[in-house]
């Protein structure tokens, strides 16, 4: 039995941290989303659902539905999804390549993967402008994808790598021994072992990609505005915090729906593996 004292000594700090830095801010944000913008970056009464209405496209002034936000959300999901797909296609083989190297080379390659994190993310994205400008690619959708894959590839490769490291390769031999040709043996014996890492990698790539605004802002231009840019605008230039808060919930909702769909598909065990 966990006594109260032991609870505070062991779980206390973690629970406290979550309560203060996760639940409380979300609660505050929810409160803001129900308030009204009184001036630039100022909020006040009365309590209203107007911001939520605007999130879903209800224009209170003209009393009509303009589903622009949902369109932006849809576009964000597509762009984040495609970026994630690119990361999977490039990062999955890369993780195998690194994991199969001799120990010293492996450490070196992992170091190369981590080195970019030593430089500020914003500066690295700006650097891409210099790289891509000669090709007349800034701003463009292509530049956005390049930037996204560049930004999130390490987050995909690292969890997949740690899965591949633990792969029991004897199972591959067992599958071949039982009559499976090499590609089939790989899919039957090795791929399932890397699934937890693959899923973790996809989530670590897709969720931040869905919410990013830096990459699309700097490399994508106005035409490729994502849901993240929309939120950022409300807290920045537009100074409409209630609307920004409500928009954040739209993004959060999209992620939660995605996770819920995944959990339902993978069953109870899926969620455990995910963590």
């Amino acid at each position, binding site marked *: 039995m966990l006594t109260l004292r032991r609870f505070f000594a062991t779980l206390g700090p973690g629970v406290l941290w979550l309560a203060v830095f996760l639940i409380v801010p979300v609660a505050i944000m929810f409160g803001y989303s129900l308030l009204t913008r009184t001036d630039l970056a100022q909020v006040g009464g009365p309590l209203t659902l107007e911001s939520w209405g605007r999130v879903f496209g209800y224009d209170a002034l003209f009393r009509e539905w303009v589903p622009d936000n949902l369109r932006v959300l849809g576009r964000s999901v597509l762009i984040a999804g495609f970026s994630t797909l690119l990361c999977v296609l490039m990062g999955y083989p890369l993780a195998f390549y690194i994991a199969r190297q001799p120990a010293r080379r492996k450490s070196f390659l992992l170091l190369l993967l981590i080195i970019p994190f030593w430089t500020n993310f914003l500066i690295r994205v700006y650097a891409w402008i210099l790289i891509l400008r000669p090709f007349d690619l800034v701003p463009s959708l292509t530049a956005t994808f390049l930037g996204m894959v560049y930004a999130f590839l390490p987050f995909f490769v690292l969890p997949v790598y740690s899965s591949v490291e633990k792969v*029991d390769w*004897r*199972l591959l*031999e*067992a*599958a*071949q*021994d*039982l*009559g*499976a*040709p*090499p590609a*089939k*043996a790989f899919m*039957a*014996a090795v791929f*399932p*072992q890397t699934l937890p890492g693959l899923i973790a990698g996809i989530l670590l790539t897709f969720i931040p990609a869905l919410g990013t605004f830096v990459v699309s802002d700097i490399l994508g231009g106005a035409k490729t505005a994502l849901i993240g840019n929309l939120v950022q605008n409300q807290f920045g230039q537009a100074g409409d915090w209630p609307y920004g808060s409500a928009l954040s919930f739209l993004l959060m909702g999209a992620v939660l729906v995605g996770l819920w769909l995944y959990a339902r598909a993978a069953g109870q065990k899926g969620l455990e593996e995910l963590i």
Partner: protein
Amino acid sequence: MDVFKSFRNAQGGETRVLDDIDLDIRKGEFFSLLGPSGCGKTTLLRILAGFEQPDAGAVLIGGRDMTGVPPNLRPVNTVFQSYALFPHLSVFDNVAFGLRQKGIGGAALRDRVGRAMETVRIGDFGTRKPDNLSGGQRQRVALARAIVNEPEVLLLDEPLSALDLKLRKELQVELSNLQETLGMTFVFVTHDQEEALVMSDRIAVMNRGRVEQLGKAEDLYERPRTAFVANFLGQSNLIPGKVQEVGPGGAVVMTDHGPLRTVYGADLNVGREVMLSIRPEKLRMERDDETEGNEVRARVDDIVYTGAENQYLLEANGQRLVAFQLNSDIGADEDFDYEEEVALYLPPASLVILEEG
């Protein structure tokens, strides 16, 4: 001879792990590859399975050349040392894996998988995952997964080594019975000499990449040809000497203990240096000298009581000898004491001449 395999000079890196192995395994026999770790027996098995290729030579299975044929196209299946069960598949799906690769499905699949599972007595475990099974049960799943494909040769890579002694003994008997029932050719790799003796029709004793001796269990035990075989299968007393006399009934070898007669060595040249070998349990310890010859005076140095027998460490003319006497409880005077002077009788039929001096 339906199964013939020969390969020569398989090189693993710089060292030669298999050197001129020429084996002829018969259809339907329980064949064991026995040797210490690093002797090349597992490499040999992997060459049979197709996971490794010989540098020279050929593997023939059922008369067909298997050189260069990938593992998935060979008519062999392997029971791996680690079992290598698929953790994400149920027991049923593990066993069904091989048949599904061949495109067998539906009732035929269920029927054959069911029968294989019954054969190894895991009929009720179909829906379980390997993680929820004990070591012995996993072993059975690995066995069912292999035999369900009805391979021409079943390869077993130390499949019992991870199990505890009691279970191992049980499974030894079961494996042996299974092989008889199925009539399948089993090639069994082990470093456990007792395991090999209990189960095999024939055994190839391997050492440093070569086959030291090939034969039935009794042949190997009763008539080892090299010192390695004499000591790897059980224990032996080795006595060096020189051939003194040769006749149709055997030879007389001059040793530190005097002349010893043996029924072997009728074809040897007089004057040749040889090594005699005798099993500890074949030595007869006596209190009184009889005059029939082949006797050695010895003193009891140490006694090890093992339950079924007493093991005597003896000192005879500066040489260490070991004798096992059955604990048959005939009378107290059958046991010998520390420091006691005894006569050791070495029966001529039990004195084997080894090939290397």
